[in-house]
């Protein structure tokens, strides 16, 4: 049941989720509730494939993915910060927009539907010692300590956390709240772009409608479970990835797919219960 390929497939499964969850954590720290991760990932997927296709370079594809997802996250940024719109409305709407827009673009740009791929479409290729993993996988792991340092060892991180806790206080101390919030949302968009690029050019080499299949929502849950700390978020994503990979194994021993599908969600829910239960016990009232 447990072998190297379990971890390898868990690793593959969790990378896009990890990128998105780090984006979510960053936003959460600055007091922005970001549920548009699913849409950002999907836009990243599309950007990656389009970029790679038109330039013939997967890495330019990654850059395009980052630009596209960052641009897309402007919707949340402008809507929620400049116009003070409700981030949940904007999140739900922009997720639907991502599905509609990428489906629309796949028809108008690639002249096809459902999915786009081509044998000549460049993927990221393998990198490093672990089979089947792209450079972006390692980058996602590096992003964890990098963000932890940024949040807890860099002046920006201190200000960002202050902005998240009491924006009006931060602003009275000369910190430009708007700038920080725009910063985290756009940086989150960029991270989701990387996640989308990994999904569309790292995991596989194609774009399919709605190919994120709920990974952005899992990321939202991971932010919660990981308490918006980069390390916690990593653990949460890892837990989910392992539970999913483990679910595949359970199919192998004869459980119906409909039963194993639920495994990662149930595991996550139980983990949430346990972590909250512990916290409650340690901290009365």
């Amino acid at each position, binding site marked *: 049941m447990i072998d190297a390929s379990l971890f390898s497939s868990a690793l593959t*499964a969790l990378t896009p989720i990890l990128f998105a969850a780090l984006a979510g954590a960053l936003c959460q720290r600055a007091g922005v509730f970001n549920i548009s991760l699913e849409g950002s990932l999907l836009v990243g997927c599309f950007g990656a494939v389009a970029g790679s296709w038109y330039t013939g370079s997967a890495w330019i594809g990654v850059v395009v993915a980052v630009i596209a997802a960052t641009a897309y996250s402007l919707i949340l940024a402008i809507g929620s910060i400049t116009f003070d719109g409700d981030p949940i409305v904007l999140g739900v709407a922009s997720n639907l927009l991502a599905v509609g827009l990428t489906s629309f673009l796949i028809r108008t740009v690639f002249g096809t*539907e459902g*999915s786009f791929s081509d044998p000549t479409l460049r993927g990221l290729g393998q990198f490093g010692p672990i089979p089947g993993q792209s450079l972006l996988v390692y980058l996602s792991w590096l992003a964890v300590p990098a963000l932890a340092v940024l949040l807890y060892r860099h002046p920006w991180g201190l200000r960002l956390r202050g902005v998240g806790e009491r924006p009006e206080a931060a602003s009275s101390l000369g910190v430009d709240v708007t700038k920080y919030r725009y910063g985290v949302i756009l940086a989150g968009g960029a991270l989701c772009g990387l996640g989308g690029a990994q999904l569309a050019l790292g*995991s*596989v080499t194609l774009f399919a409608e*709605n190919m994120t299949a*709920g990974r952005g929502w899992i990321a939202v849950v991971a932010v919660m479970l990981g308490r918006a700390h980069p390390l916690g978020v990593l653990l949460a994503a890892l837990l989910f990835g392992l539970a999913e*990979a483990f679910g595949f194994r359970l*199919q192998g021993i004869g459980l119906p797919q409909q039963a194993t*599908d639920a495994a990662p969600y149930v595991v996550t829910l139980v983990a949430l219960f346990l972590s909250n239960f512990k916290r409650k016990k340690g901290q009365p009232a």
Partner: protein
Amino acid sequence: KDPAAQNAAGPALVLITPSPVGVNDFLKLAVQGIEDSAKKHNGTQKVFQSTDPASIQQNLAAAVREKPAVIVAVGFNFADAIAAEAERNPEQKFLFVDSCTTKPFPNVTCAVFREHEGTYLAGAEAGLLSKTGKVGAVVVLDAPQFHRYSIPFGKGAEKAKPGTTLAPLFIGGANPFNDPARAKALATTLAGQGVDHVMGAASAAGNLGVFEAAKQGGFFAFGVDANQCPASPGQVVDNVIKRTNVVIGDGVEAILGGKTGETKSYGVKEKGISLTGLEPDAATSQCVVASHPDVLAKVGELRDQIISGAIVVDDPAES
């Protein structure tokens, strides 16, 4: 609006698909079939693409309002909707491909496939080629209809080389028909368990994930519906092809000729189902199996046995 359509004197045909055509080989063949038919009968043709059960119903109703000579619907998702429309519109002729209404209707002609025969043959190839004695399948959903791509694969492999075992995995999840990353992860998982030949029935996008896993993991895969070997040359052994275009051509012709209400089943014998490797253009197909003439010879024998009735492949969907 389309001037060509106005001028055409022949019958009007409408094809309704259950999901966007795009790169879906099965649906692409269906579109090809309707186009060929329209050309052949000097008629017109339209394609309505649906996305979900609600739009299937809408599109079917819209098609009925246009009163074309034949409405062609492909995909099992249409069963209930066609039954309802056929009952309500006894004058309207339907060609229902890939499935049939539970109750027969005089105005509904059905064309179904026996994919399991093709899968069985593909399994035989896998059994012959497998070094590990383990074959697998990555299939969209854990349901009898889709078991036609897994169970017969194991049976064929076992027949070709006794002792070969099958490990099927199903995609499921939030988006089973469009989750290539998950399809790839499942194929990789199978490889981790020692499987070296994987049948891919993971949807149009999903199969590409399976092929990529094969490329990375150095194992082999099988495609479905059309020749998918060019998508990943050197990795795809063979394909279970479904000649939807031919079947639609036949069906439309029969209906226009006045024969309606039948159900015709297409298998290896009727040449509705085949393997790319067994086709005349196998050599140029870029399929791995083309370079294994010995395997093809043995599989050819099995095919003949199926045609003659010496071998009967159980249909998992019947159980």
